[in-house]
C-alpha cells in the first residue's frame, strides 16, 4: 500500500516528507512503548504512535520504519520534526486514536492481504542483520566532580521515556552511577556506553587510567584506594565495584595497570 493511500484512509496531514508519499509500505506497528517499538521487526512498516519526543525518531531509524503516523492529533515539537528531516523519516498526523487508526488500515488490507508475500520476501532479506540496538554514549572526565553523575541521570531519563520498567531502571542507574563515579575518582577520562536491546541493557564503562593492580581485592566490599579528600565527599566507601556486580546480571572486568579498566555489565529486561 502506498503511503499516499494511508494518508487518505486516515485523513492524515503530512507534517514533513510530501516527496515520500509514493513509497510502498507492507505493514504497520501500533505502540506507545518504545521497547515494543524496538522489538518490532517488520519490514517496510509504518509506525502508529502517540509518542512525540525525539527518541521516537531515533527508534524509528533503528527499527527501520518507513514512516511515522502520529495518532490522536499529536504534533511533535519543531526540533523533533527537524530531526526527522535529517533522518529522512516522513511524518504524518491523524486525528484518529490508535485503535481506530489500526482498525482502518487493517480493514483496508495493510499487513494481511496480497502484500503478505512481499512482506515475507522483504523480511527474509533482513534475517542476518543484527537486532535493533539503541546506543547512548557519554564521555566522562576524570576529577570532574561538578558533572559527575550526569551521564547516569541522562541515561535514566532516556530509559524512562522509552518505557523501561522502573525496577530495571533502578538497577541500571545504580550500576551506571557507580561506574561513572569510578571514572571520575580514579581515571583520567572514560566513556559510559549503554546498548539497549529488546532483551537486555548492556552497560560498558571504559577508561584511560591507572588500572587496578588487584581486581580480587578491589571487588571486596569496603576496600578502596580513594584518597581522603574524596572520602570526605562520601565516596570511596569501597562499594563501587561490589554495587555494580550486585545490581547487574552479568559482570565482567578487565584491567591493565598503567593503561585502564573496562567493566561490562548486562541487565536483562
Amino acid at each position, binding site marked *: 500500500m502506498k503511503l499516499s493511500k494511508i494518508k487518505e484512509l486516515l485523513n492524515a496531514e503530512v507534517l514533513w516528507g510530501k516527496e515520500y508519499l509514493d513509497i510502498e509500505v507492507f505493514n504497520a506497528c501500533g505502540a506507545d512503548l518504545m521497547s515494543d517499538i524496538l522489538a518490532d521487526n517488520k519490514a517496510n512498516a509504518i509506525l502508529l504512535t502517540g509518542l512525540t519526543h525525539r527518541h521516537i525518531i531515533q527508534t524509528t531509524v533503528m527499527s527501520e520504519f518507513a514512516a511515522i503516523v502520529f495518532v490522536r492529533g499529536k504534533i511533535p515539537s519543531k526540533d523533533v520534526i527537524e530531526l526527522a528531516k535529517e533522518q529522512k523519516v516522513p511524518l504524518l498526523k491523524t486525528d484518529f486514536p490508535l485503535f481506530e487508526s489500526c482498525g482502518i488500515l487493517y480493514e483496508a488490507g495493510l499487513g494481511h492481504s496480497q502484500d503478505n508475500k512481499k512482506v515475507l520476501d522483504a523480511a527474509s532479506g533482513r534475517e542476518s542483520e543484527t537486532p535493533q540496538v539503541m546506543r547512548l554514549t557519554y564521555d566522562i572526565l576524570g576529577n570532574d566532580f561538578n558533572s559527575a*553523575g550526569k551521564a*547516569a*541521570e541522562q541515561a535514566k531519563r532516556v530509559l524512562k521515556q522509552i518505557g523501561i520498567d522502573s525496577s530495571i531502571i533502578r538497577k541500571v542507574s*545504580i550500576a551506571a552511577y557507580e561506574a561513572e563515579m569510578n571514572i571520575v575518582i580514579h581515571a583520567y577520562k572514560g566513556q559510559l556506553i549503554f546498548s539497549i536491546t529488546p532483551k537486555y541493557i548492556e552497560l560498558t564503562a571504559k577508561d584511560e587510567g591507572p588500572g587496578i593492580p588487584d581486581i580480587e581485592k578491589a571487588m571486596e566490599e569496603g576496600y578502596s584506594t580513594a584518597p581522603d579528600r574524596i572520602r570526605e565527599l*562520601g565516596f570511596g*566507601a569501597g*562499594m563501587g565495584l561490589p554495587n555494580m556486580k*550486585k545490581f547487574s546480571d552479568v559482570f565482567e572486568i578487565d584491567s591493565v595497570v598503567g593503561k585502564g579498566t573496562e567493566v561490562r555489565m548486562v541487565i536483562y529486561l
Partner: protein
Amino acid sequence: MKLNEIQEPLNLKLVTKVVNTDRVIRGGYASDLLSWVMAHAKEHDVWVTIQSHQNIVAVASLLNLAAIIVAENASIDENTINKAEQENIPIYSTDKSIYEVCGILYNLLSKESG
C-alpha cells in the same frame, strides 16, 4: 505521611525553591557514604546526611528519593541548591543532629503506620 507534615517536628528549613512538598514519604535512610545510599535507600525515602555537595542530588534523583535533609546546619553549596531545583528534589536544612532527625522521623512514621 507528607513532606510538609515533618517540617515542624524536625525544625526543617526548606532551602530549595518551588519543589513538591506535598510528596508522600515512605521511609527514611541515613548515611554519609554515597555508594551505601545507592545500594540501600529506597524510592520515596527521605535521606538524612551531612554531605552537601552536588552529588547528593544525583543520588537522590537516580533513586527517586522524596527529599534530602542536611543535618547539623551543614552549609549547602549554591550549586547543590540549583541542581536540586532543576531535578525537583527538595532539600531541607536543620540544626538537629542526624541522630535526632532519625529518632523523630522514625517515631513519626511508625506512629502513622500504627
